[in-house]
């Protein structure tokens, strides 16, 4: 019985002795910070942060300053300890949400040719400038919906619509849209102008009945708050300010201003 214990412990010592030499001989200069950050992490090596294990995430946090809130099992307290250790403030700014600035659904916006090709916005935009009569509007081939990691975007009647509660503001949909219709806006802003067409009124009315015709009604009504300004023939909301005067939603002739606070 005693020989077994002795034999195994000898093998154990032999191996650990060999490893000690190897560790010394092949030592790799490592940034000490990585080790410390690694200790803050739960060490589950689950890969939810998208890196191959905790050590890898620690390295990414220290060297190429990856996001601090990616550790799913750790949750907010790991994020907090990481921030306090690295002295950075995780952007705890208010929650951002993506929104698609177009409401030219198939019943209001016209198409101008019968498109035969890849059902993807980026490709469709390159063939004849896109088959939607309005050259600014949403083509509806759901490139943004396919690229969204949390499936927060749904295609309704040919136009993309973002569900704010699912959106994690990762910004993938912004680069996917060839017409740059998607913006990141603070979640608390509920009034939006869903149009991005810079054409003159008559041109817009010919292609889409719910497009902004540049009548500047909303600008006049919110004059004191200066929350809406004209960019050529398109009314634009300044998202740093809250729009108080909700009357503009009814007053807007083409009805392209919406207020999401009620529904």
């Amino acid at each position, binding site marked *: 019985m005693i*020989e077994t214990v002795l*034999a195994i412990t000898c093998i154990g010592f032999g*191996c650990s002795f060999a490893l000690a030499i190897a560790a010394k001989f*092949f030592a790799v200069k490592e940034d000490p910070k990585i080790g410390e950050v690694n200790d803050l992490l739960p060490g589950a090596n689950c890969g939810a942060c998208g890196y*191959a294990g905790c050590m890898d995430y620690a390295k990414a946090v220290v060297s190429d300053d990856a996001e601090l809130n990616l550790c799913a099992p750790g949750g907010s307290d790991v994020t907090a300890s990481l921030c306090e250790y690295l002295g950075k403030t995780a952007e705890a700014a208010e929650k951002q949400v993506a929104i698609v600035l177009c409401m030219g659904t198939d019943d209001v916006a016209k198409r101008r040719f019968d498109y035969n090709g890849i059902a993807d916005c980026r490709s469709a935009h390159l063939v004849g400038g896109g088959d939607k009569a309005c050259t600014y509007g949403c083509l509806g081939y759901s490139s943004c919906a396919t690229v969204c990691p949390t499936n927060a975007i749904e295609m309704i009647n040919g136009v993309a619509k973002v569900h704010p509660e699912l959106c994690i503001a990762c910004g993938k949909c912004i680069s996917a849209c060839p017409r740059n219709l998607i913006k990141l806006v603070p979640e608390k802003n509920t009034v939006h102008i869903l149009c991005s067409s810079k054409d003159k009124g008559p041109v817009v009315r010919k292609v889409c009945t719910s497009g902004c015709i540049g009548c500047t009604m909303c600008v006049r009504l919110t004059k004191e708050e200066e929350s809406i300004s004209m960019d050529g023939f398109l009314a634009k909301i300044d998202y740093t300010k809250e729009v108080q005067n909700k009357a503009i939603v009814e007053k807007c002739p083409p009805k392209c201003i919406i207020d999401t606070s009620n529904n």
Partner: protein
Amino acid sequence: MIKLILIVISAVLVNNFVLSRFLGICPFLGVSKKTSTALGMSGAVVFVMTLASAVTWLVQTYVLDKLGIGYMQTIAFILIIASLVQLVEIVLKKFLPSLHAALGIFLPLITTNCAVLGMAVLSIQNKYTFVETVVFGFASSLGFALALVLFTGLREKIDRSNPPKAFKGVAIALITAALLSMAFMGFSGLVKI
């Protein structure tokens, strides 16, 4: 000499460790996403298995058999394999940091890789001599590498396929692995060993 060649053929083709004996499936599925990581992993496994076969045979014959404590075989083997893997990790971190990062979690996983332990135990059961054990270790790791590289090629093709939602990812990979092992059954009986 003939016996060595037969061992190699049997370990690589006939009873391939992954496709016929179904050992070492988790790195087989885990690392076969990209060819570069697959090659890196195969290299690491070849190194570990060959060394492990030699060391485990020595320990078995000169320590365990001598003291008649064959039953300690599993613990001793795992101890040796684990330290060999740690050695590989240190060496890789020093000379091939990019590969070390790419392999990530799968490198320490080799310790629990049943192919390595399976090979060590099998070579003892088949009563191979020292040279035969090392050749068997090397050949079985070659078999593992062959299956892994073949499967990575297939994996990159089926990653571009669009199976129904339920079968996306590992499910379709497992079906492909099943078809691949069905193909390798063609070699059965190639070698009467």
